[in-house]
């Protein structure tokens, strides 16, 4: 049985107060459980998105590196390096926050980084088609990487909030509510005991009074 709360006097008033506290604690517990369930559901959803996103990122990057290797094999790594120097691109990333039940998760948006072959800025005549393929795949991979960063950070933030809420739910479920209930039972038992004591005392007083009256009549 759970511990009782120390320093509570066993009175009917306290019992009523405890009753109210138990009702409120149970309501709070149910509400927090709702929040925990919702958070877990969000968390599982984000975890699934992380898996999907990491799979597609790996796929895109593998393809891009394969094309890059092919391009280096055909043109030589120096030539590919030189092309990479003229095709630099600035990627604008907008990092903001989204709110999931009080948990701030990042919202990263980017402009479309995919460019046409002309926009990339290198000549077609002396370059292999593998360079085009690699550039296209890397551009696609960049967007996947950004998406992955967003969901991975969300997973971390949500996980810590799930743990925090779970701890609060467990504290109410296994410590606060049982303790309140045990104290209420203790007070109820103590009041019943006091009632029995009073009953016995009254009976003894009555017997003593009756014995006194009988003595007086005999005299």
């Amino acid at each position, binding site marked *: 049985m759970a511990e009782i709360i120390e320093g509570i006097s066993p009175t009917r008033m306290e019992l009523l107060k405890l009753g109210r*506290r138990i009702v409120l604690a149970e*309501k709070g517990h*149910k509400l927090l*459980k709702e*929040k925990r369930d919702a958070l877990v559901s969000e968390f599982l959803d984000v975890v699934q998105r992380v898996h999907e996103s990491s799979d597609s990122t790996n796929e895109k990057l593998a393809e891009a590196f394969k094309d890059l290797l092919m391009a280096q094999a055909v043109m030589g790594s120096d030539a590919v390096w030189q092309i990479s120097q003229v095709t630099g691109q600035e990627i604008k990333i907008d990092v903001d*926050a*989204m*709110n*999931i039940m*009080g948990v701030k998760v990042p919202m990263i948006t980017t402009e479309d980084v995919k460019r046409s072959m002309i926009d990339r800025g290198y000549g077609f005549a002396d370059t292999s088609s593998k360079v085009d393929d690699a550039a296209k795949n890397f551009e696609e991979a960049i967007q996947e990487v950004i998406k992955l960063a967003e969901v991975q950070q969300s997973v971390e933030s949500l996980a810590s909030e799930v743990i925090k809420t779970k701890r609060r739910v467990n504290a109410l479920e296994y410590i606060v509510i049982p303790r309140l209930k045990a104290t209420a039972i203790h007070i109820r038992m103590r009041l019943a005991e006091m009632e029995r004591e009073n009953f016995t005392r009254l009976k003894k007083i009555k017997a003593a009074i009756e014995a006194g009256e009988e003595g007086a009549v005999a005299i």
Partner: protein
Amino acid sequence: MDSESRVFAKLVRSLNDHLPAERKTLGELLREEKPRVVSRDGSSYRIRKEELETIERIIGSKWGKEAERLRLPLLIEMSPDYGRSAARIRGRVYCDIVQAILGEERKTTDEMVIFRTDVRRLRRELPSATQYAFLISTS
């Protein structure tokens, strides 16, 4: 209000701190370059423009100009009174949006109750344009 009720009220308030202090209309949000709402705890957060456009597309045809007056974010009301993980959507326009996203038609008046899987689908479609609200009856 006794101290226990005050503690409970504080708990409910803290669970709903993320709700917007004032909900903006769809029209206002669409006009903003980076649509944001300020929550009760003073912080602000962003709503994705694509989600706003999705909502506009869904209700625009049925509600016309009225759609612009729709207040966002859409609230998913969670309460133990509806049963575990069930949620309530209140408001005819909001019910229309939810039905369109879930791809089902219900005979609803002003509110509808949806369950865990539907809530997940709705959140997946509109993660920033919807918010959970935690409610409990006072009785």
